[in-house]
């Protein structure tokens, strides 16, 4: 048991651990344990086994896997658990931080996309952050009425105009933002 506690500390003993498994694999995290009967006397066994010495099989027996799910644990009513599963996408979790660059600006900024509930909020925030105005969005013509166009790099590495896809899809595929200026921006706005 002390072994797995040490894993969570800064010592990062995990990196220097001798294991039987292939490098890069972590058996503990992948095996869901439905019956933890064999975990019953963790204290005594763990005393005998030193972390650095740990054989991965023994580790499985003495320490409940950190992320594996034990049936009925933690003791939360199913009703409540189900509520969270349904809302996983809505919840905080770690933020989705992306870099934002603006052509001509001396340094980049970073924002958390999860803080915003939609495009209007995001664009407003960008306008405030970089002190500029974006213009009206239309599906046909992109952003009209300003020198700037908000773009983002998606998972495939392509530069896309902000606003075309549904918000949820956008925040999961957006890797970074770039506020394009001038002729480049106007180029994006016209249907190519």
């Amino acid at each position: 048991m002390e072994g797995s506690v040490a894993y969570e500390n800064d010592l990062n003993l995990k990196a220097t651990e001798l294991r039987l498994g292939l490098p890069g694999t972590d058996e503990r995290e992948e095996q869901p344990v439905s019956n933890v009967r064999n975990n019953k006397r963790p204290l005594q066994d763990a005393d005998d086994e030193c972390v650095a010495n740990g054989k991965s099989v023994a580790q499985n027996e003495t320490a409940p896997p950190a992320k594996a799910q034990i049936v009925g644990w933690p003791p939360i009513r199913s009703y409540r658990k189900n509520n969270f599963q349904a809302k996983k996408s809505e919840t905080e979790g770690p933020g989705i931080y992306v870099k934002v660059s603006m052509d001509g600006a001396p340094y980049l900024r970073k924002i958390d996309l999860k803080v915003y509930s939609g495009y209007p909020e995001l664009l407003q925030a960008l306008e405030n952050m970089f002190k500029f105005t974006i213009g009206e969005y239309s599906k046909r013509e992109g952003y009209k009425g300003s020198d700037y166009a908000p773009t983002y790099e998606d998972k495939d590495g392509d530069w896309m105009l902000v606003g075309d896809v549904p918000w949820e899809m956008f925040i999961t595929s957006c890797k970074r933002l770039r506020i394009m200026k001038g002729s480049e921006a106007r180029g994006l706005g016209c249907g190519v």
Partner: protein
Amino acid sequence: MNYFPDEVLEHVFDFITSHKDRNSVSLVCKSWYRIERYSRQRVFIGNCYSISPERLIARFPGLKSLTLKGKPHFADFNLVPHDWGGFVHPWIKALAKSRIGLEELRLKRMVVSDESLELLSKTFVNFRSLVLVSCEGFTTDGLAAIAANCRFLKELDLQENEVDDHRGHWFSCFPESCTTLVSLNFACLKGEINLGALERLVARSPNLKSLKLNRAVPLDTLQKLLMRAPQLVDLGTGSYVHDPSSEVYSKLKSAIQRCKSIRSLSGFLEVAPRCMSAIYPICGNLTFLNLSYAPGLRSTMLTKLIQHCKKLQRLWILDCIGDKGLGVVASTCKELQELRVFPSDPFGAGNAAVTEEGLVLISAGCPKLNSLLYFCQQMTNAALITVAKNCPNFIRFRLCILEPTKPDHVTNQPLDEGFGAIVQSCKGLKRLSLSGLLTDQVFLYIGMYAEQLEMLSIAFAGDGDEGMLYVLNGCKKLRKLEIRDCPFGNAALLEDVGKYATMRSLWMSSCEVTLEGCKILAERMPSLSVEIINESEQTEFSLGDRQKVDKMYLYRTLVGDRMDAPEFVWIL
């Protein structure tokens, strides 16, 4: 005592309302038993299999209000298979056949069918109050029957049930003549409801005090409902999302301000944080705030809100409030008696949202604290000892360290001393749930000090039989004991079999108890029902005596073994 006519005694008994006291009264002598049983209107049955409906009806002909509990507590955590039992239908059938004028039915962890609800609604003309907690098996069709047929319905309270939502118009089934509603809670329903019917119902219910909406009720409807019902005392919002710059939102703000009686607030199942400021005007009156279903609220918003809630007595919150947020609670909510902190990410990577620090802050700031449910990533003995010193009034103390068998994260020691301090300091402790790394020592402390303990929940703890024995021998008032994944075996189970007749029930799963041990127990104690829940493919015949039993549930009963047990439940 013998010189008073019956009516006088009956009048005196009217003042005795607690179930325990009335039970005691009935044991004094035959005439008191007789008078008590005829005058008893409210009955509580903690285990529906401990007695039969027929005997209940025979003894209490004046019964008006019945509370029944079905499945064992661990069923909440998926440890009990789906069809284990706890059916309410035989009860309703028997009551329907009798002359009982049932008015109130409260069920917890029971299986309720639409058929039962329909029978209930059609049989009892004065039926007023239906409360279902953690039940399952019914659909909105059953609710439609209740709505349509119970002409004097005062209370329909559905808490955390699994309801099959047929999206029918059950809401429209409340007749125009229904004006008696006092409490309506349908927050757990997942489907759409007829918003117009809801508005009309609220408009014609002048006595409505408690209203809890489901997710399908949008903010603009909420605004309209609050305009109709400014007398509300208890409000659960549905979806709480809107553009804060809209007219609807400003109308909502003024509607909320008129609701000066709201003392209890919950819901926010969907929430736009920027709309929360509308709530500030009523925060100062709140005694109960439940934000445990609102993961959309960040710590900063939560603390902003709570700073307005100076009179709060009960707070249910998610752990994203963080230790710092709990510090704000501690400095603001001096009247706090009950705190529940739920994990927002139960299987998460351990982004430690709350730790022992938050708990210590709370204990220091809220001396009236008597009830705690706390899910956290880590704990220390030192913290628990401090908490015990600061809050000696705990009645309920339930601590869940998310990682099983996790020791004191500073000293790497078991948490025996910490929990020991709690039981020693809190002389009135009735309910305790343990977690973290624990040896038999903690059970020694519990047996020694926890004199008032009635319910104990243990998981992944102890070294051997001694641990369980300390508890069984020491805790004289123990009623419910539930144990999972502990090294307790036959020796502990069989040491004092008579003990179980003084308790409501015992649950043991993934322990060292064998089939043979259970058989011996069942033989020695015929007044107990010993159930083996066996979900593997094996039949009872192939299960050897030496084999460890996966799940055992035993309870005292006056009516022998139940007849409705499914195949995988084997009653010894």
